[in-house]
């Protein structure tokens, strides 16, 4: 990672306006979005959006031809452009031919993608952005920090300063007054411009219709007052039929700005008369810029379903800290990372893709049903393939692919850490490792890992048998958690075995794009876990569970090891997370959870993989309630804690503020006990609380259940 990128991150994190504005917005967004979708079946709606856009992405060429035929029959001119340069040349030539001096623009991401303004300016044209946010950014000489709210990082005072310079008068930082100033200034530009440039949100092939939505009303002026209108339309905006626009127009305003509908939806199907009575000179540029190539890519075609609502930015725990100046380029946030890799170049996404912590929030809210984290994963795999791995990467991967070596290194570390360990935590490390313990204490590596302690456990027989997959953290840092798992299962009449051949689930390699390494871990674990016939393979780590249940199969398939997929599927079918299994056993009457007395009030932290990938969140709450624990829900209980596996090592400066929010919410809940189902979150949250010096206990559901079973 370039030092420059780290520096940008630091600068963004140090900007209180950016983090403050984005943070407040993001916190309010969840509720306002939910209100906008009240009474609407979101899953059904987004399935329709995905279907309409997905189908269109399979026929872009044909749809472009149909669109062009329809609208040009009514007098519009359609230009199909492959490259950004062709678009820029076309517009400049058109402007020069008509003696255009002034251009007004309504918001168009496609024009930003090709850096049109700079090009026109270079050739002596006056170009004014007319969307208020875009105009502010243009005057400030900055880049939008958010796709829908370009100037969200600027305060009213900063806007007043920017406008004051433009109009040569000292303006107060009164927002309605500032808006009036913009209206006055831009009204003159609208009336004086010879050319209007817009984008489009949708282009309907069957009818040859462009649909443009705005709230301010600027697109209507851009498309009405100047005699020339140029619409720049990425071909992914094409859909087949007019009625297919309904789900898009229904979802987009709700997801983007929590509105039922934007103030203006304009549908243009041909050149309407100008204000002087002449017919509009209407040019539609259908821009490809690698979209066709994307459509032909079996993985990335999905990203063409995007309707640019930016909800993936609004729910992202990382975006709300650093904003779009760091997280993205022209297109920002999760989807922006993917679009940048294609519309610009893969290399350009190298730094920003690393910012995705993989929490899955965006996948939940995407109205076009795009699995953004999975596509970012795919970017990582392609980047990994494209570039030679560094020596240190190679060294790490060869260790994790060699269980014996990996585990003996962990055992050695357990001894080496002794001078720094205190009460189960490492609070300070030597300076060269200092970043690791700056914002949270680390757990000590257990003197005796679970795999050894297991041999000494009583191992009662039962009429059912479970293989316990511990994962590295439980095995080597939290063996007592593993013992609690065994104890609860034993109480339910389940015999537990610990296959010694099990090793790392492969998550660190997998989430870095090193799929071959992850597939190596998959093979070892499949062999270890399917050697004996069992009823369940149980894990108390959601990330491991996801690996066993879903990712092993994918790793093997995508690395061409199809012969092993059958065994992977067998393993997947047996795999279950701790709380889901115990809830089922309790429902069967195999485990009696008598409400304990005088138990602490708990607040539950939902781990990303458990809640969003496995869909498990009620089970642990239900179990804890049955065991007599009283819940006190925290704000944003299912927001990522900032751990993200090796993410917290790669980006400690981002992990720390994400954790800080989590800890604030924990403390505000009033509970003195945090319950969770993930040893990674346990490490992060317990370490953070220890560093804060707050005595709030953090326990895995298994530990809390084991306590009441005594």
């Amino acid at each position, binding site marked *: 990672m370039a030092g420059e990128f780290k520096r940008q991150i630091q600068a963004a994190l140090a900007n209180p306006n950016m983090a403050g504005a984005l943070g407040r917005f993001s916190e309010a967004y969840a509720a306002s979005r939910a209100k906008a979708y009240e009474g609407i079946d979101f899953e059904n709606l987004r399935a329709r959006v995905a279907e309409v856009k997905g189908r269109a992405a399979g026929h872009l060429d044909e749809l472009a031809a149909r669109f062009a035929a329809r609208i040009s029959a009514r007098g519009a001119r359609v230009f199909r452009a492959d490259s950004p340069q062709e678009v820029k040349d076309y517009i400049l030539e058109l402007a020069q031919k008509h003696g255009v001096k002034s251009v007004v623009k309504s918001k168009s991401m496609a024009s930003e993608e090709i850096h049109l303004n700079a090009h026109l300016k270079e050739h002596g044209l006056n170009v004014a952005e007319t969307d208020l946010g875009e105009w*502010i950014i243009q005057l400030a000489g900055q880049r939008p920090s958010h796709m829908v709210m370009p100037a969200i990082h600027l305060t009213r005072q900063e806007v007043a300063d920017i406008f004051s310079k433009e109009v040569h008068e000292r303006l107060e930082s009164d927002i309605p007054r500032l808006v009036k100033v913009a209206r006055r200034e831009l009204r003159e530009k609208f009336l004086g411009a010879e050319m209007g440039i817009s984008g489009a949100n949708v282009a309907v092939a069957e009818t040859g219709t462009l649909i443009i939505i705005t709230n301010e009303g600027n697109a209507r002026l851009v498309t009405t007052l100047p005699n020339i209108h140029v619409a720049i339309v990425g071909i992914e905006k094409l859909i087949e039929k007019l009625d297919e626009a309904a789900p898009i127009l229904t979802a987009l305003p709700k997801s983007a700005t929590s509105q039922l509908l934007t103030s*203006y939806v304009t549908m243009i199907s041909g050149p*309407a008369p100008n204000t002087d009575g002449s017919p509009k000179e209407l040019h539609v540029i259908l821009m490809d810029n690698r979209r066709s190539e994307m459509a032909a890519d079996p993985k990335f075609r999905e990203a063409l379903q995007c309707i640019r609502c930016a909800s993936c930015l609004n729910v992202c725990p990382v975006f709300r800290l650093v904003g779009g100046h760091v997280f993205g380029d022209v297109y920002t946030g999760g989807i922006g990372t993917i679009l940048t890799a294609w519309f610009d170049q893969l290399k350009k996404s190298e730094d920003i893709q690393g910012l995705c912590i993989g929490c899955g929030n965006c996948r939940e809210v995407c109205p076009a049903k795009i699995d953004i984290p999975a596509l970012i994963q795919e970017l990582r795999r392609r980047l990994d393939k494209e570039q030679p791995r560094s020596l240190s990467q190679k060294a790490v991967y060869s260790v994790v692919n060699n269980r014996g070596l990996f585990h003996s290194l962990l055992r050695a570390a357990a001894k080496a850490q002794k001078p720094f360990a205190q009460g189960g935590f490492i609070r300070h490390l030597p300076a060269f490792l200092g970043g690791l313990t700056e914002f949270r204490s680390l757990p000590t590596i257990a003197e005796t890992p679970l795999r050894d302690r297991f041999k000494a456990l009583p191992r009662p027989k039962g009429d059912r048998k479970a293989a316990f997959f511990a994962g590295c953290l439980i095995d080597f840092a939290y063996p007592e958690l593993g013992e609690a798992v065994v104890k609860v299962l034993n109480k339910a009449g389940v015999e537990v075995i610990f296959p010694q051949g099990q090793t790392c689930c492969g998550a660190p390699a997998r989430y870095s794009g090193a799929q071959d390494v992850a597939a190596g871990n998959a093979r070892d674990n499949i062999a270890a876990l399917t050697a004996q016939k069992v009823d369940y393979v149980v894990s108390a780590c959601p990330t491991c569970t996801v690996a066993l249940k879903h990712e092993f199969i994918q790793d093997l398939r995508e690395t061409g090891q199809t012969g092993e997929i059958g065994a992977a599927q067998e393993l997947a079918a047996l795999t279950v997370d701790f709380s889901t299994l115990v809830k089922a056993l309790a429902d069967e009457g195999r485990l009696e959870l008598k409400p304990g007395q005088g138990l602490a009030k708990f607040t539950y932290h939902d781990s990303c993989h458990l809640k969003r990938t496995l869909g498990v969140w009620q089970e642990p709450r239900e179990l804890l309630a049955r065991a007599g624990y009283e819940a006190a829900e925290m704000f944003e209980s299912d927001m990522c804690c900032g751990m993200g596996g090796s993410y917290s090592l790669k980006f400690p400066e981002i992990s720390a503020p994400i954790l800080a929010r989590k800890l604030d919410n924990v403390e505000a809940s009033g509970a003195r006990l945090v319950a969770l189902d993930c040893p990674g979150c346990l490490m992060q949250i317990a370490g953070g609380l220890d560093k804060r010096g707050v005595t709030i206990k953090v326990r895995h559901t298994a530990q809390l259940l084991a306590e009441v079973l005594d």
Partner: protein
Amino acid sequence: MIFDLFQARAEAVSAEVHRAPDRAAALAFINEFLRAEDLAPAPGSWAIWAPGPLADALDQRALAANLPGLSFQVTRDLAAQAKVGISQAQWGLANTGSIVADSTQVEQRLVATLPWIHLAILPTNAILPDLPALLARIDPTTALYTTIVTGPSRTADIERVLTIGVHGPERLVIVCVDDMGEVG
């Protein structure tokens, strides 16, 4: 009731909704509205009324004589200095509180975009339930420019503070007319 939903949704986005039983009542409302807005034949104070079924059926000369500052001639220059623009919408959308107008003729666009206040006449019985109902009725072969308007112009681009009236009208006044008579 489809009107009640329309009214509730339109008012929720700061549109002003009025209901008139018939043409005469609608005209009386508009008359009073324009007087209350200090209509005058001066830049920034006049009103322009675009062609439409109702406007076309009026005795325009008499009305203009009675209301100095009201013009049935709609030009770019007049629109740029108008306080009020009046037009007739084809449809309403109940579940979003929107009005819809075929604005292929430029007068329709001028009166609805440039003035501070846009007053739209809407036959109550033209309120459709929702967007899909509308999309089934639009004919893009003739309607080259159609706009769905939902409340006045707005922005939240500075500190996310909702501010009404950016580039378009800062007031949207909808007069629903139950019985349009022969001009419906």
